[in-house]
């Protein structure tokens, strides 16, 4: 029987699991379905974010960079891109994501987000187990300018997990009433214990690619007008170390600069761009400690305070400017 991934979160009557009473197969099956749901529903790998980049046919191929560690079990993603033509006529744009086909879409002249977004279904050639730059490649087929207003991406759920030693899908038939508890690969109690032990709920906190920002100041200057909220899942610790990186460059060879990420709870971390950083690329990755949710609160905010991250940058030496167009923070 397949290790199916339910649409809704299955319930467990954990109060039925008590000393002196037999644990029903039904209860254990629900627990297995719940674990399948937790693992198989997919992640939001690009939380919706404003972009603001503009392209025209004169720009040739333009890439938007979304860097994160996705679910290692996902095999398809849904991308949504809002775009509009700033000219008097709508404009066509070719979109390619990953190894998928190139598709042509029309960006309307109306700026309203009520325009249906470009929806691109990306089918992965391989499961992704390391942090990766999921590049959205665009080519405008118009001399008018097309503005990319916003981008988001979520992973499609899996119909079922594979019953193997990687995904740990559990054969649900092994929990049918009157079935004996046994220790066979991907069956019964031991398999459920393996699967739950291997669960690792993760979040992508920030995955925003936007217009180029730069500063030539020798003092730290904030990149965003306000810091971005980021609150980690609670798995036994009040804090969590999360991974971060930037899409950035220095304006010229030989210059150097520093990015500083600051959490509202007090932690800071830096990424330095040295003399060879004159080309745009992912810089980092590094880690910073942020607060985790307080699961006793109605909103999860510890001490009723949002945990946030703010990025700042400064030039260290050589002059020129330090530039950034993307900030990424996720559970590594």
């Amino acid at each position: 029987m397949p290790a199916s991934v339910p649409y809704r979160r299955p319930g467990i009557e954990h109060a039925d699991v008590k000393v002196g009473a037999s644990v029903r197969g039904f209860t254990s099956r629900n627990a297995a379905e719940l674990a399948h749901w937790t693992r198989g529903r997919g992640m939001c790998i690009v939380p919706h974010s404003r972009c603001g980049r503009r392209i025209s046919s004169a720009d040739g191929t333009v890439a938007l960079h979304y860097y994160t560690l996705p679910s290692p079990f996902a095999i398809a993603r849904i991308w949504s891109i809002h775009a509009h033509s700033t000219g008097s006529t709508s404009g066509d744009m070719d979109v390619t994501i990953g190894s998928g086909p190139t598709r042509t879409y029309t960006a309307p002249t109306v700026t309203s987000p009520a325009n249906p977004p470009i929806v691109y279904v990306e089918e992965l050639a391989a499961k992704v187990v390391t942090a990766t730059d999921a590049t959205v490649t665009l080519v405008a087929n118009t001399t008018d300018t097309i503005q990319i207003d916003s981008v988001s991406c979520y992973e499609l759920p899996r119909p079922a997990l594979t019953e193997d030693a990687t995904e740990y899908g559990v054969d649900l038939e092994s929990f049918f009433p009157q079935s004996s508890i046994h220790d066979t690969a991907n069956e019964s109690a031991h398999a459920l214990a393996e699967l739950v032990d291997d669960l690792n709920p993760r979040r992508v906190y920030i995955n925003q690619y936007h217009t180029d920002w730069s500063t030539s100041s020798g003092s730290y200057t904030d990149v965003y007008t306000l810091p971005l909220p980021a609150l980690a899942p609670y798995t036994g610790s009040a804090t969590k170390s999360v991974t971060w990186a930037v899409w950035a460059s220095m304006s010229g060879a030989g210059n150097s600069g520093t990015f500083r990420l600051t959490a509202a709870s007090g932690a800071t971390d830096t990424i330095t761009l040295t003399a060879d950083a004159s080309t745009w690329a992912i810089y980092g990755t590094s880690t910073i400690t942020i607060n985790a949710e307080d699961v006793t609160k109605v909103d999860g905010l510890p001490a009723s305070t949002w945990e946030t991250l703010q990025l700042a940058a400064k030039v260290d030496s050589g002059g020129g400017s330090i530039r950034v167009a993307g900030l990424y923070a996720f559970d590594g």
Partner: protein
Amino acid sequence: MSSSPLGTVELYAVADFADNHPVGARAWRDGPINNALHYADQRAQVLVNWQEVTSGTEGQTNAAPPGGQSTSSWSEIDRAPFSASLKTDGTPYRLRIQLAGYSQGGAAVDFRLIVSDFDSIDDYVFSPPTYAETYTGITSTSTAILTPDSGLNYIDVGIQAADPALRIHSTLDDLAGTYQTVSVCELWVSVWSRYTVSTDKAILTGLHVSEYFAP
């Protein structure tokens, strides 16, 4: 909040549940059952997270109403789809909201945030459900985190929004597998604004929406 008996993760040895290891009900409850519940709570995702950059070289990273709009009428300024995590009763996980914005010239502006299926967005903005957030009378001329009229920083989306949001997608069951279907509750966050003075538009400069489990 937590649905697990212990409210946190309890470490256990997988080998304790193998052959020839008698397991008591308490070990089963406090180990795999507890952790399955807690991890399911914590799979909540960040759905929307952006802030305006302090300066840019191309288009705007904030969201403003399009030109030619009438004053005092709602116009949509940002819209985002997401795949909702559904609780056992079919309602979505609680959504934590933070919205930042300002009034261009200081005359009072309003923002409204709604969550619904794609087809109901237009209806909901004019007849908002009880869980919609409205930010009335914003006069700040600089970016600030705004407080909704409800005073709450979260919303609980009702079943009436979740049910019509069901979408069926065709997808492979595994790499190089065969096509099957999966169901997704695809909801949309939509932010609207209105203003009374044509030169004083409502500008959205940041938005955060994240899931949080609450029974």
